[in-house]
């Protein structure tokens, strides 16, 4: 992982670096997630969206 300082500093990952570190990052984050692990942040409007889409596709048939 390289750090470059141009006008706006940023850290650059290659795809390989990112993919290679996936398992380790997953382990680390799961280790502190405790009993609430594998949580999903459900968008509260999701059900409404699905219902709206279903209505729309029915209406256009």
């Amino acid at each position, binding site marked *: 992982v390289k750090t470059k300082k141009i006008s706006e500093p940023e850290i*650059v990952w290659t795809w390989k670096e990112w993919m290679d570190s996936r398992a380790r990052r997953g382990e680390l984050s799961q280790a502190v997630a405790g009993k609430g692990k594998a949580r999903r942040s459900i*968008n509260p409007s*999701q059900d409404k969206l699905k219902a709206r889409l279903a209505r729309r596709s029915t209406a256009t048939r």
Partner: protein
Amino acid sequence: MIFSVASGGGRRHFERNEMINTAAALEEIRAAPTQSEKNLRAASLLMALFRAAGWEMVVVGGSAIEFYTEGDYLTMDLDLCRALGTKPLPARVEADVMKAVGAQPVGTRRQWLLDALGEVTIDLLGEVETVGVAPWQTLQGPYGAVRLMPVEELLVERTFMAVLREPRDEEAWTAAKQLAAVCLSGEVPADWGKVERIAAGKEYGVAAAVRRLRKEVTRENKKNK
């Protein structure tokens, strides 16, 4: 499929080396083994298409957390903001990019569904808000660069969200802990001094909560070893 998009006054077709094979990319997204990888690949494709149209986008919020922590925190949306200092996205450009990947609008022009992502919606938000202290992290994705909100700022923002509520919002607190875990281990490059500075600043004012968070993560990591 050759991607072309309205740009400025007319429709612009890109030269061969700028072409983005959206059909092949969508196939790869569908075939990706995890939802997190599908989301990441989709972010890379969409950001490349917006870039080709002249707009730089960044991944923010729960989507950025998901990418940094590798999928344990799964969001149901892919949050994309315009980069700092970019002009507002015309509806026509949004629609052209979304049409190029076969996404369908869901009621508003800012929310789209892409079949390759299942139920995950693509949310096109406004200009990104940042305190601008920490570096952006850029992943050289399969179809183009994916720019992620600075991890230091995400961590402080999620801690802030957790302690805003009484009792504490455990989901936000866990997300902050997960980010802290990948940062404190060095797996994701992060400057903890900047985390503390952002936390202590008047934007958030959660220095004590961030100190508690760090202690908790350090203690749990020792216990898990």
